[in-house]
C-alpha cells in the first residue's frame, strides 16, 4: 500500500506491516501460510523439482531393469509399479505443478496485478499437493505395493490391486481439486485483474495459453475424478460400472479416462507453447510473428482436443465409422499445431538471434516437439496405429512431446525468468552445458525407442526378446546420462537462489525481452504492482 492509501484509510505505521515495500513475513508464516503469489509459485516449482527427481529415480529403476534381457533387479509386479508411479508422478507431480508455479509467479507480473485473485485459495491449492504426493510414495509400502496398472489404470486390472490403488485414487482426487482451484484462480486473475489498457489481444502469449489451459483443466479434471470414483465404488461398494459380469463395460472406463486424458496432454503442452512464444521473440529481438493466429491456433487445439480421445483406443474394436472419425479429427489437430511451429520459425526469420540458454532450450523444444508431433501423426493413422499401439513407438512419441516438449519449455522458462526471480544471472556456461548434455542424452534415450516400437517391442514389459537388446542398452545408457545431467540443473539453480552467486541482474537482462515483468526491478519486489501500470 502506498503512503497516500495508508493515510486515507487511517492506518498507522506500526500496524502489523511497516511501510517498507519489501517487507516479508517471518519464515514459518512466509512459507507455510503463504499467500504471496511469488512465494507460492516458488513452492510449486521446488515441489515439482523434487518430484521430477523422484519420478526420474523411478524411471532409472525401469531403465536399469531393461538394460539387459532377463530379470535382474525387480520382480515383474514391482516393475509395473515403477512404470505406473513414474508416470503419475511425472504428469501430476512434476510437469503440471511446474507450469502452475510459472503461472503463479509470472501471470500477475505480466498483467500488472498485485497478486492472484484468490490469494488464500492459492495457498490451499499448493498445500493439497504434498499430501497427495505422499500418498503416492507411501503406496509403495502398502501390502501388495503401489498401483501397477499403468497411469491409465484400466479396469478390470485396476480392480485387482490392493490398498495402494485406493491411495492412488485418493491422491488423484486431491491433485484434481488442487488443479481446479489453481485454474479458477488463473482464469479470474487474467480476466479481472489486468492492468488498465491491457486488452485481451495485448495479453502476453504465456497468459493466453494458460487461460485456455485453465479452462481445459476445469472441464476435464472432474471427468477424471468421476472415472476414479467409479473405479473406487467398483472396488469396494459392489457397483459394476466396469465389470461386464455385473452388466458394466470395461471399455466405458477407457472412454471416460481418455475424455480426460487427451485434453490432459494439451494441458501439459499449451503453457509450454506460451513459454517459448515469450522466449523466441526475446532472443530474436523481433516481435512474435502472427500473434492473432497464435491465439486462435491455441484455442482451436484446445477445442479439437475434446474430439479425439478415442484415438488412444483404436485397438478396442470400434466400428469403422468411429475409427475414421477419430482418425480425421486427430490429424486435423496438426493444422493449428503446424501454424504455431511456422510462426515460431517466422519469428526467428530475419531476426537478430543470440543463443543464451533459454533460447537454446526453446529451439530444442520447437524442433524436438515437432518430431514428437510427426510421430503423433503416424500414430493418428488408425491403420498404422494397429501395429504401433502399446509399443515403444508410443513411449518414444510421448516422451518427445513431454520431455523435449513440456519439460524443456519449463527449463527454458526457468532460465529466462530466473534473473527476475533471484536478481542474479545464472552461470551461462553451465546452462549451455546443461542444454547440450540434456539434448544429447535425451535423444540417446528416446530415439532408439522408435525402432524398438516399429520392430514390435510392447511397452510395460520388464523383459524382452533378444532382438530388442541392443537398442534397450543404448536407451538405458542415455537415461542415466539424462538423469545425472539434471543434477547440474539443480546446482545451477541452487547457486543463484541460495548461495547468491552470480552477476546482479538488470531489470531487463535480455535486451530483446518485452512485457511488463521486465519493467520491475530484479529481483521483483515482494509486493509488486502496488500501483497498476498502464498499458498503451
Amino acid at each position, binding site marked *: 500500500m502506498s503512503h497516500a492509501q495508508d493515510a486515507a484509510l487511517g492506518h498507522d505505521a506500526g500496524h502489523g506491516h511497516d511501510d517498507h515495500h519489501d517487507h516479508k513475513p517471518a519464515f514459518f508464516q512466509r512459507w507455510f501460510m503463504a499467500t504471496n503469489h511469488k512465494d507460492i509459485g516458488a513452492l510449486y516449482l521446488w515441489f515439482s523439482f523434487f518430484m521430477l527427481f523422484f519420478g526420474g529415480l523411478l524411471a532409472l529403476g525401469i531403465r536399469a531393469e531393461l538394460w539387459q*534381457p*532377463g530379470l535382474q*533387479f525387480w*520382480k*515383474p*509386479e514391482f516393475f*509395473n509399479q515403477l512404470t505406473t508411479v513414474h508416470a503419475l508422478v511425472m504428469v501430476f507431480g512434476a510437469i503440471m505443478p511446474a507450469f502452475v508455479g510459472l503461472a503463479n509467479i509470472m501471470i500477475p507480473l505480466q498483467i500488472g496485478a498485485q497478486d492472484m485473485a484468490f490469494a488464500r485459495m492459492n495457498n490451499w491449492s499448493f498445500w493439497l499437493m504434498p499430501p497427495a504426493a505422499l500418498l503416492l510414495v507411501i503406496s509403495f509400502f502398502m*501390502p*501388495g505395493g503401489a498401483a501397477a496398472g*499403468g497411469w491409465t489404470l*484400466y479396469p478390470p*486390472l485396476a480392480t*485387482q490391486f490392493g490398498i495402494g490403488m485406493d491411495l492412488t485414487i485418493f491422491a488423484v482426487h486431491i491433485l484434481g481439486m488442487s488443479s481446479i482451484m489453481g485454474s479458477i484462480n488463473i482464469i479470474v486473475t487474467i480476466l479481472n485483474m489486468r492492468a488498465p489498457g491491457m486488452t485481451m489481444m495485448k495479453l502476453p502469449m504465456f497468459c493466453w495459453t494458460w487461460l485456455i489451459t485453465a479452462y481445459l483443466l476445469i472441464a476435464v479434471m472432474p471427468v477424471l475424478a468421476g472415472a476414479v470414483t467409479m473405479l473406487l465404488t467398483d*472396488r*469396494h461398494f459392489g457397483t459394476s460400472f466396469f465389470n461386464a*459380469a455385473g452388466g458394466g*463395460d*470395461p*471399455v466405458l472406463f477407457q472412454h471416460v479416462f481418455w475424455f480426460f486424458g487427451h485434453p490432459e496432454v494439451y494441458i501439459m503442452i499449451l503453457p509450454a507453447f506460451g513459454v517459448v512464444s515469450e522466449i523466441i521473440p526475446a532472443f530474436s529481438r523481433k516481435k512474435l*510473428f502472427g*500473434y*492473432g493466429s497464435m491465439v486462435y491456433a491455441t484455442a482451436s487445439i484446445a477445442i479439437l482436443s475434446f474430439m479425439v480421445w478415442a484415438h488412444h483406443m483404436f*485397438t*478396442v*474394436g470400434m466400428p469403422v465409422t468411429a475409427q*475414421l472419425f477419430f*482418425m480425421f479429427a486427430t490429424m486435423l489437430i*496438426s*493444422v493449428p499445431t*503446424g*501454424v504455431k*511451429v*511456422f*510462426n515460431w520459425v517466422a519469428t*526467428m526469420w*530475419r531476426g*537478430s*538471434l543470440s*543463443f543464451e540458454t533459454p533460447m537454446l532450450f526453446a529451439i530444442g523444444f520447437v524442433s524436438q516437439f515437432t*518430431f514428437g508431433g*510427426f510421430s503423433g501423426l*503416424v500414430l493418428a*493413422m*488408425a491403420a*498404422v496405429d*494397429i501395429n504401433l499401439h*502399446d509399443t515403444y513407438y508410443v513411449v518414444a512419441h510421448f516422451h518427445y512431446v513431454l520431455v523435449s516438449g513440456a519439460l524443456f519449455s519449463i527449463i527454458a522458462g526457468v532460465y529466462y525468468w530466473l534473473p527476475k526471480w533471484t536478481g542474479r544471472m545464472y552461470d551461462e556456461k553451465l546452462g549451455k552445458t546443461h542444454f547440450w548434455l540434456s539434448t544429447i542424452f535425451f535423444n540417446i534415450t528416446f530415439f532408439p525407442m522408435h*525402432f524398438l516400437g*516399429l*520392430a*514390435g517391442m*510392447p*511397452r510395460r*514389459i520388464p*523383459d*524382452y526378446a*533378444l532382438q530388442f*537388446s*541392443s537398442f534397450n542398452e543404448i536407451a538405458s545408457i542415455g537415461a542415466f546420462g539424462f538423469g545425472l545431467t539434471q543434477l547440474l540443473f539443480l546446482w545451477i539453480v541452487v547457486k543463484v537462489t541460495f548461495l547468491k552467486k552470480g552477476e546482479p541482474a538488470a531489470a531487463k537482462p535480455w535486451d*530483446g525481452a518485452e512485457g511488463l515483468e521486465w519493467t520491475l526491478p530484479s529481483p521483483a519486489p515482494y509486493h509488486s504492482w502496488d500501483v497498476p501500470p498502464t498499458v498503451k
Partner: protein
Amino acid sequence: MFETMKQRVACTLSLALMSPLAWAADTLPEGNQPGNYPLNLQAPKSGIAEQIFNLHSMMLVVCLAIFFVVFGVMFYSIYAHRKSKGAQAAHFHENHVVEVIWTVIPFVILIALCIPAAKTVIAQKDSSNAAVTVKVTGYQWKWGYNYLDDGIEYVSALATPRDQIDNYDGKSAAKNAHYLLEVEPGTELVVPVGKKVRLLLTANDVIHAWWVPQLGVKQDAIPGFIRDAWFKADAPGIYRGQCAELCGKDHGFMPIVVRALPQADYDKWKADTKARLALAKDDPNKVWALPDLVARGKGVYEANCAACHQASGQGVPGSFPALAGSKVATGPIADHLGIVLKGKAGTAMSAWKQLSDTDIAAVVTYERNAWGNNKGDLLQPAQVKAARQ
C-alpha cells in the same frame, strides 16, 4: 525379405534417412524376426500388414520432407541471422497471406494422406467370409484357442524356462533363440495359408491384446465382450507376437505364435490334433485314489497356479496369498472348490472353470495335501461336475 519394389525403396529410404547406426539384418531363419538393430516394421506377411507397411513408409517420407523444409528454414536463420554476425532484426510480425497458405497446404496434405489410410481401415474391419473361425480367450497369462467349427480347444503358454528369465543372481541359463517368443510345443495357433482366419476375442479376467505384427493384426480381448479381427497369412511360416495390453505381472511373458501351413498340412494337423485331444480327454465319472490325484494336481498347479502362489505355496506377501496353511486350503472343501471355480472378485484370482473337472479336482486335492496342509481329503471329478451346475 521385401516383396515389392515399393517396399524395398521405402525401406531403403527410411534407413538412409533415419539412422546413422549400422544395420545388422541377420534375419533369423524362421519367423522372419528382425535382427539386432531392427529399424523398421517387421517384414509384412499379409495383405493388411503390407498396406500398413506402405502407409507408414509414406508417412515417414512426408513427415521427414516437411521436417527438413521447416527446420531447414529455421537452421538457415540460426546460421545467417545471428546477432554475432551483425544481423539486424526486421520489423515484420504478421502476414495474412502467408498464414493462410500455411494453414491450407497442411490441410491438403492431410486429406491426401487420409484417403489411402481410410481404405486400409475399412479393409481391416471387414471380417466377413472367413474360412476358419477361432475363438481366442486371454487368460492371466496364457492364450486359449478354440476352433469353433472343429471343436479343437487348447491353451497356449510361454515355453521359455524360468531359469533363463530369472537373472537376479547373475547366473541365468543361456537364452533360447526365441526367448520369450516361444510357446509350448503343439500349442501354436495353426492356420491354413492364404485363407481368411477370423478371430473372436474375449478374455477371462482382465483386458489383453492379441498382436502378431507381421500379420498386421492387433485386437484387445475384453472380458465380457466378443470382438473380432481377421488375418490372412501370405506364406507358410511361423509368426510371433506378444500380448500388447498391460495385463498384470506376467504381461511380458505372454507370447503368441502362429503357424501357417499349406491347406493339406493344415487338414492333417486338424485330424491329428482332434484325435490327440480326444485321447487325452478324461472321464469325469472316474473315481480317483488320493496319491494319483495329488500327483496329477501337482502338474496342474505348476502350470496354472504357481505363477502367483509360487511353487512353494508361499504366495507373494501382500500380492498373492499363501496356500500353505491357508484358511481356504484347510477349510471346508466346498468353499475351496468355489474359489477355484468362480474366482474372487476384486483380486487377481479369476475363475478357473476353463479347466477340466479332473484337473480342478486334482489341483484342489493337491493344494489340500501339499506344503504341510495334510488334510488327507480329496475331491472327485464328479463332485466338480456337480458343483458347476
